[in-house]
């Protein structure tokens, strides 16, 4: 009984809020460009679903591609840097500086570098930049967080550098790397959307473009529809990454 109630509670809350919203719109007669009623948003979604799905796929595939690219570069760089203390010390401040710089601030320049004719390249690059750091710092932390007694054991048995890396450090880093990917997945979507906004009408047809286009025309119901698709997509990506992280960890630890 309490279990069903727990599952139903959030759905019920959303239903109540939507009902209130709908009633408020109808009773006050607020203009649709200012606040469209939920029914109008639903109608916009139903009408534009093919367009919205296409745009969602465009943004999602950009984010996924960026995630893959970030994963590859961040993991390799972390591996190289972890082998040399001096290198790590040298890279650290630079990495922090890049990490704390908001992606919006560097986006216009990246768009110019990528060439105004190639907004896709700029969008991917920016998504890679934001997805890079959680994976990079996760991998670096993981590679250094080995059990000191296991390190002693590897010393005792005269392990080579390669054996230590392959059999101890990389497996030890796995949970940290997975966590990094989970965070990076969400950030990659944010990065892609921010980059789409900055790249503007340059030919990208992602969800950000749908939002820009509809809000410029004061078609607020369409804007809401695109935002809802965007957050559903983000939630779905997060759920998939979370589930795969848990599945891999369960396999990894045996429970």
């Amino acid at each position, binding site marked *: 009984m309490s279990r069903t109630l727990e599952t139903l509670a959030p759905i019920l809350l959303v239903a109540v809020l939507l009902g209130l919203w709908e009633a408020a719109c109808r009773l006050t007669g607020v203009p649709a460009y200012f606040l469209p009623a939920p029914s109008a948003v639903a109608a916009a979604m139903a009408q534009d679903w093919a367009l919205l799905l296409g745009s969602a796929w465009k943004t999602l595939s950009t984010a996924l591609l960026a995630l893959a690219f970030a994963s590859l570069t961040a993991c390799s760089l972390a591996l190289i840097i972890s082998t040399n203390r001096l290198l790590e010390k040298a890279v650290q401040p630079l990495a922090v500086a890049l990490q704390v710089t908001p992606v919006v601030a560097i986006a216009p320049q990246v768009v110019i570098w990528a060439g105004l004719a190639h907004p896709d390249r700029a969008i991917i690059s920016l998504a890679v930049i934001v997805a890079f750091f959680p994976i990079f710092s996760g991998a670096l932390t993981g590679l250094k967080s080995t059990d000191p*007694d296991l390190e*002693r*054991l590897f010393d005792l048995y*005269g*392990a080579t550098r390669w054996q230590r890396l392959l*059999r101890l450090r990389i497996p030890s880093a796995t949970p940290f790397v997975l966590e990094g990917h989970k965070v990076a997945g969400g950030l990659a979507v944010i990065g892609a959307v921010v980059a789409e906004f900055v790249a503007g009408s340059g030919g990208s047809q992602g969800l950000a473009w749908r939002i820009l286009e509809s809000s410029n025309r004061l078609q607020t119901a369409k804007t809401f529809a695109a935002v809802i698709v965007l957050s559903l997509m983000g939630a779905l990506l997060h759920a998939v990454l979370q589930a795969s992280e848990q599945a891999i960890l369960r396999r990894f*630890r*045996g429970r």
Partner: protein
Amino acid sequence: MSPVASLIAVEVAYPGRGTVLGPFDLALTEGEIVALVGSSGCGKSTALRLLAGLEQPTAGTVTRTPERGQTAVVFQAPTLMPWADARTNVALPLELAGMAKAKAHDQAQEALKAVGLEHAIGSKPAQLSGGMAMRVSLARALVTRPRLLLLDEPFAALDEITRRNLADDIHRLWDQTRPAVVFVTHNVEEAAYMAQRVVVMSANPGKIAGQTIIDAPLPRPLGFRTSEVFRNAAEDVSHDLAKAMGHVQ
């Protein structure tokens, strides 16, 4: 008999902490079980790391006849790789030494059988109880047939029944190849039960405060824990410990 390993007038000092050990002497003969007893921070684990070659003394000499791979250490925690199953964990020292995987895994399986874990070969550490994980750790230490076995408070995290079973298991396994063993503990009864010779250490810096020889067969006969010999030995060790702590003149 010549010593398998020895510490001769060794001293260990750490920056900021001063001398933590020494001057300290200890010689291990072939097939001997020695217990090192003392309060926390008396340098017994440091002495163990010197014997293992994992640390160098600030002064003095360490001699070791076992070659690389012939010294094994069991730590306080099982120290297993959480991502690897029991067999892979036990095979590690062999594989690090370059043995082919199939052969190493066969030998690991034998070692696990010897500690009574043939049913847990494919289990990962998280699926094992504390006692079972410690047995895997012991199997990993024994799989190389070491000449020097160093046990650093291996029972610290286990309950009394598991401790007693494991103590007898260690004696039984020791009897098969008779390596020299150093057993570090802060438990007087455990030391008297495990070892032929109990060395009590005083702290700051760690030095030998007393030594008790226990003249009784190994592995221990049934009922040894209630015997006169055991009681007397435990009492002697207890006395040394009280002296080391400055409670008795």
